[in-house]
């Protein structure tokens, strides 16, 4: 059992954390929502809604535990089988796809369970006649000291990180091995080499630049998001959202810096032969683990839209607005009359887009094109 098996162990822990986050989701949402359905705040104490949330959490726990058991079993079986069988590319690819499926299982299960309990809540909503005669909305006209996301200028911190990685590459280039290991199989064997060239050294820097673009885009998205203000308690919810958005933007910045520094530096060191690729992957895996632990912590402390920052306030029994008709399948927002492109998601922590806005589609397509261009550019540069 070598480095790659520790890596697989790490993947299992990541799945456990993802499962935990999914299982907690209904408890972290805003009080006016239950399984992506708008309900009066006082209805959150309704025994049926509470039992739906308990059942959802229990089901998610079971799915996660089964998923982990299957993945751990597969790793144990692979560990006891001869190394040669793992070097077989077919076995390795089955293993890789199995790992991807195992990682996605909690999210897929969470979505399906949400859809199920969403229809249950909708039935209760019809039965109880919870509806709104109004469609209130609130917004800042003068922001004063209300907190908000940190300035985009903080992203300049990426510049020294990228420069330092480039400097390591320039200094280490003369002592770089030829050929350079580029890809490693599950058994720790190097499956791909590239011949020594400046392009190989530039690869980690390019990855960092790509990460930089992605993280800055996410930060900008937070700045441009609709600021959801609860019309029933505008000032308090505006402050709670401000605190939430600030914390999320700081978290995003810290994660981005950690990831780009970690990925860039370890890739650079491994292509210079100072680290094995397995060790580099382990470092990145540990970083991802730290980030997920942080994300779970953030979710529990703040909740979606700062819902948990103001959770002790008393509950209102009326609905002041109901935009359920714009949320397709509970999580996809489609509202042509809403000028906002980015807004908070309905089930889960974080932001989503208004799919009725062409700008949202342009950005989705732009992201895919950017990713493709990056991958093709790297292949061209490294000459694989």
């Amino acid at each position, binding site marked *: 059992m070598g480095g790659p098996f520790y890596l697989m162990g790490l993947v299992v822990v990541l799945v456990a954390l993802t499962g935990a986050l999914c299982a907690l989701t209904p408890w972290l949402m805003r009080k006016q929502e239950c399984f992506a359905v708008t309900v009066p705040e006082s209805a959150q104490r309704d025994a049926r809604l509470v039992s739906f949330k308990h059942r959802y959490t229990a089901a998610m726990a079971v799915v996660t535990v089964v998923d982990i058991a299957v993945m751990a079993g597969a790793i144990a079986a692979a560990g006891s089988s001869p190394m040669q069988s793992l070097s077989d590319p077919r076995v390795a690819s089955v293993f890789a796809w199995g790992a991807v499926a195992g990682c996605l299982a909690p999210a897929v299960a969470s979505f399906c369970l949400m859809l199920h309990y969403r229809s249950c809540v909708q039935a209760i909503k019809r039965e109880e006649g919870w509806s709104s005669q109004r469609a209130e*909305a609130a917004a800042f006209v003068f922001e004063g000291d209300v907190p908000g996301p940190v300035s985009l200028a903080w992203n300049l911190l990426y510049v020294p990180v990228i420069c330092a990685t480039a400097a390591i590459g320039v200094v280490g280039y003369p002592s770089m091995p030829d050929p350079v290991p580029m890809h490693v199989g599950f058994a720790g064997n190097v499956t791909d080499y590239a011949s020594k060239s400046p392009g190989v050294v530039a690869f980690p820097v390019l990855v960092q630049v790509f990460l930089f673009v992605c993280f800055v885009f996410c930060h900008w998205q937070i700045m441009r998001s*609709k600021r959801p203000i609860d019309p029933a308690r505008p000032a308090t919810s505006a402050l709670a959202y401000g605190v939430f958005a600030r914390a999320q933007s700081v978290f995003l910045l810290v994660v981005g810096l950690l990831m780009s520094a970690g990925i860039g530096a370890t890739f650079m060191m491994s292509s210079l032969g100072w680290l094995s690729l397995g060790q580099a992957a382990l470092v990145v895996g540990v970083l991802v683990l730290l980030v997920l632990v942080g994300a779970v912590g953030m979710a529990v402390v703040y909740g979606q839209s700062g819902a948990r920052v103001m959770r002790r306030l008393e509950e209102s029994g009326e609905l002041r607005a109901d935009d359920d008709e714009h949320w397709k399948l509970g999580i996809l927002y489609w509202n042509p009359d809403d000028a906002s492109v980015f807004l908070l998601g309905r089930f889960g922590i974080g932001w989503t887009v208004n799919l009725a806005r062409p700008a949202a589609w342009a950005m989705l397509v732009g992201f895919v094109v950017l990713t493709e261009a990056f991958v093709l550019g790297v292949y061209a540069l490294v000459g694989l």
Partner: protein
Amino acid sequence: MIIRIDKMAESPIYLQIRDQIIVAIAQGSLLPGDGLPSVRSLAADLGVNLHTVNKAYAVLRDEGYVIMRGRSGAFVAEPLREVSPDRAVQAREQLAERLLHLAQEHKAAGGSVDDFVAEARRQAEAVYADPGVAGARRDIGVLGLDPQGERLVCDDAVVRAQAPGRAAFAGESSTPNSACAIPASPSGAAPKLRQ
């Protein structure tokens, strides 16, 4: 400063936005030179069309409450009467015209002169007696609520109803520290809203 609208109310949304910004200026919550949010960001926050906010800002600009400066956005204008004698005359004419309409309606509905003057005086005094929060330190106020802090006021009586209702958020200061203190003080902002 937070404004509230009701998209299902009879009064058009752009008028609700206009009325509430005028109230904010009257109360000193918005001072001359203060920037208003960009059309895009206000429309996004309220979840309405860009054209709706554009129209509200255009009306405010035409009425002289707001100046628009190309890409840098909208700003609260100097009070009309302080800008120039011409504008002062213009503002006086506008006031006279509106009072004329109100007086005609009042008479048509069978009201007396004394009632009209007394009511006008009472409303004007209420507006001018409201100290507002002019100055460097501002509180978050919530516009568009009736005096009980319960419901939206969507008719043209916003200005009248607002004066006493302003107390809803008195004392809630909006420093970053108070934001962090929300969980510790459940008796803070929201319960006052819903007395």
